[in-house]
Structures are given as C-alpha cells and as structure tokens.
C-alpha cells in the first residue's frame, strides 16, 4: 500500500511537469493549428535560466528558488513571443507544412545554439529550494516533489482561471474557434497569439526548472525526451483541448512511473506508448478531443 502511494506521488509530480509542457503545445495548436516543435527547447532554456539565476542567489532558500523560477518563466515568455514574432508570424497564412518544418528548424537552432552558449557537457543543477526529505508511515517525500506538485498545481489553476475567467482568455478561445469572427468583434489576433505563446512558454520555463530539480543534470538536448512525451500527452488528451492536455500528462506520468517501479521497468517507454496507441485507436481525437472536419 505504501509503495502504491509512493508511486502515486512520484507519478503525480512527473505528470505535473509533463502537463506544464503539454499545455504550451496544446494552446498554440488551439489558436494556430500547428505543433510548435521548438517548445521543448524553450523548456530547456527555462532550466538554464533557472541554473544561472539560481546560482547567483543564495541556494536552498524558498525565495531564491521562487525568484529563479519567476526569472525562468519571464525569460521563456519573452523567448516564446520573440520566436513567434520573428519566425512564425511571417509565415502565417501560408501552408501549415511550411510552418511545421520551420518549427523543427527553430528547435534545432535552439538546441545547437544552446550547445554553443552553454556547452554540450551536462551540468549539475543547483539545489535552489531547501532540500529536505520527509517520511511518514514509510512514505518518503522529498521537498522537491512537494515543490513540483504545489507549484504545478498553482500554475495550472492560474491557467484555468486565465483561460476560462478572464477577457483575454475568452478571446483566446474565441480565436481558437473562429479567427475571422474573432477579428470581427475587434479582437487583435496578433496580440492574442503573442499572449498565447508567452503564456505557454512561461509554463514550459517553470516546467524546465521543476524538471531540473528532480533530475538535476541539465544539457542543451534535455528538452527532447520530455518534450516528446508532453507532445504525446497533449495528443492523448485531445490536442487543442486544455483540460485534455493536463489529463493526458497525468496519465502518461502515472503509467510511466508505475511501470518504472515494476519488474518491466526496462520497457517503461514501450509500455507507456503502447497504452497510448491503444487509447488513440479507440479515441482517435484524444480523450477529451472532439472529431472535427477541417474547415476549408
């Protein structure tokens, strides 16, 4: 029983990190109908910002950790907005495939610029938050796990509020549903798209720092695997669907963790992906997605 609870907590914290990344994929897909492959590298940049800011501040303090995380979020938000403005916006209105290929190019650009700037050698991520291991009834919970779960929950609730309760969030949903009609009520879709990129990238930045706290070795290619998994989580939940992305990420995180803790741990990715393919066979639009025909 305690092992089950232990794995549940591990799965929850992994799922929460996937959710933070997956939301960026799904929100951008929602408004622009393309997969921003560079998103996983924005996540990586977030971890590096956390690394540099964290080392400049006193380690092992709550405020130092929070400031590092805020810096990573702000830096990534700016990066996401700049990428959209300079790279994707000029291609808007063109064939989706062009934007998709450009996104892959942007991803490689960030990865190799990262190797140039940060070096290819992995670095040890500093303990920016207080480290402490708590134990009750045989359950081992690290402070880092608590931080991941608390921070991710706060951010997810904040996002939920932004998207469903604020004017700009409603505008985001309106643009996702019908960009033409959105313009006709006076919504500047450029502003909404920038906002979407900023929001998604900030979450990825937070995800990068939280991931690095739990897997404290960072390098410029660190975004590839979690990015891919988060993308899969977004598809599993129904790409474009915000609660779906969070749900997909939780399922993926749980499955991975539980398999990892079993005797089939070598095959954890294979098993996780087999389950996903199985779900998609029965629900091709994802768990919460709706089948819609592409409108011409």
């Amino acid at each position, binding site marked *: 029983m305690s092992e089950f609870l232990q794995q549940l907590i591990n799965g929850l914290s992994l799922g929460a990190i996937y959710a933070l990344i997956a939301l960026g994929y799904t929100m951008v897909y929602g408004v622009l109908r393309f997969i921003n492959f560079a998103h996983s590298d924005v996540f990586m940049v977030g971890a590096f910002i956390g690394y540099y800011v964290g080392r400049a501040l006193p380690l092992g303090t709550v405020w130092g950790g929070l400031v590092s995380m805020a810096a990573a979020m702000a830096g990534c938000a700016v990066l996401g907005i700049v990428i959209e403005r300079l790279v994707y916006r000029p291609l808007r209105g063109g064939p989706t495939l062009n934007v998709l290929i450009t996104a892959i190019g942007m991803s490689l650009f960030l990865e190799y610029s990262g190797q140039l700037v940060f070096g290819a050698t992995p670095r040890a991520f500093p303990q920016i938050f207080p480290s402490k291991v708590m134990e009750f009834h045989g359950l081992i919970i690290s402070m880092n796990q608590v931080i991941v779960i608390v921070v991710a929950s706060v951010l997810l609730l904040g996002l939920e509020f932004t998207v469903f309760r604020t*004017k700009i969030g*409603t505008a985001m949903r*309106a643009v996702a*549903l*019908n960009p033409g009609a959105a*313009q*006709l*009520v*006076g919504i*500047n879709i450029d502003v909404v798209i920038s906002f979407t990129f900023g929001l998604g990238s900030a979450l990825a930045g937070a995800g990068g720092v939280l991931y690095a706290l739990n897997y404290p070795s960072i390098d410029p290619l660190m975004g590839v695997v979690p990015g891919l998994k988060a993308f899969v989580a977004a598809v599993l939940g129904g790409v474009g669907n915000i609660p779906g992305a969070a749900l997909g990420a939780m399922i993926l995180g749980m499955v991975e963790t539980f398999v990892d803790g079993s005797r089939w741990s070598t095959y954890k990715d294979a098993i996780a992906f087999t389950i996903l393919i199985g779900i998609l066979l029965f629900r091709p639009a994802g768990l919460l997605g709706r089948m819609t025909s592409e409108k011409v």
Partner: protein
Amino acid sequence: MLEISDLFVSYGAITALGGISLKVPKGSIVTLIGGNGAGKTTTLRTVSGLLRPKSGKVTFMGEDITRLPAHAVVARGLGHVPEGRMIFSNLTVDENLAMGAYLKTSKAAVAASRDYVFGIFPRLKERLHQTAGTLSGGEQQMLAISRALMGEPRFIMLDEPSLGIAPRLISTIFERIIEINRDRGIAILLVEQNAHLALEVSNYAYVLETGHITMQGPSESLMNDPQLKAAYLGG
C-alpha cells in the same frame, strides 16, 4: 456613412469584384442583392478588413479604412454579422455577448447594450448560460446580431440573415433589423439572396452580378422593375 469606390478584389487569378461603387447614407438601410457567387460576401469581407482589395477605396465616416486590419475597422464603429453567423459555438451565449463588447471599457455601457439586446431578443436572456452551439439556427442569428450590437456600432453589415432559418423566425429577425435601424439610427447594409424580402425592408438597392453592379435604385422602384422581377423575384 460608408462609401465604396471602384473596388477590385481577386482570389488569385479569379476576379471576384470588378470595380464596384456604392454608398450607404447615414441612417438608411441599403441592400445588395444578387445570386450565388456574385461577390456579395466578398464585398462585406473587404469592407471589414478581412480581405485586401487589389485597388479601390473604402471610406467610413470620412476616413479611408481600405488598408486597416479588421479589428481596427470594428473599433471605428462598424459591425459585421458574417455569413453563416459564425458565433463562437463552444462559448456560452453570455461569453459571446462579452466578446461582442471586447473593445468596450465602460461597464455601464456594456450593461446598457446587454439590456438593449435582451429587449429585442428576449430569448437570448433565457439561454444566457447555454453553449451557443446548442441554439437553433434562428437563435444563433439573433446572437450574431446581438454580438455585433454589443460593440455599439454606428453601421452594421448583415450577410444573409435569412439563410438556414425557420421561415417563421425570418420575419421576426427582419422586424428587429428595422427596429435597430429606426430606434438606434444604425445604418445597415443588408446582403440577401431573398430579393423580395430585402427590397421590402430597404430604402435603396444595388444588384450585383458576377462582380459588377448591374442595376441600382430606390427599393420601391426596383421592386416593380420588369427585368429585376424576371431575374430575382420569380416573374
């Protein structure tokens, strides 16, 4: 109020509008009638900035708005109720109305607009928290018109408001259109396939055929025009 002069619009090699000119005077209802593919929707989409013309000019209240993006055109007081209604189907009726008032900052003014649209379309008030996609065609049209009214426009363009709507609701909607024009002094440019209906409610009419204006005049006189009767009014 609105003046279009010598507007050319093309989709690639295909010319959609071959140089049309028309005027909508202050406080009037002007209609643009014509068959499928005549260029009626193209005209409206170009005026509101969703399409870019090849040449020509659109003037709204004395200002050249030809090259303005759509959201800036709306900000100047031009409302557009698009073809097929294009309401935000996953949003509630309430949220759709809120989006209609997207550019409005005065809470009191937004509340007054809401009261006004509930006054003319009481049914929307009953459906306030329902998802807009679950409304009937006629109710969606009411919502689309109301959404445009929430922006406090001085001029509204309506694209085929009778399309896909139960016949008994068509007359209600047209009565409301006349009421909006009369009570609020909002000028209207009405695009319709149902020429009979359009001529009945309007002051002046233009007939559009394959991108050219082929006939124009006061609506009563066009109603009795033998040529128009044969082509659009079923003889």
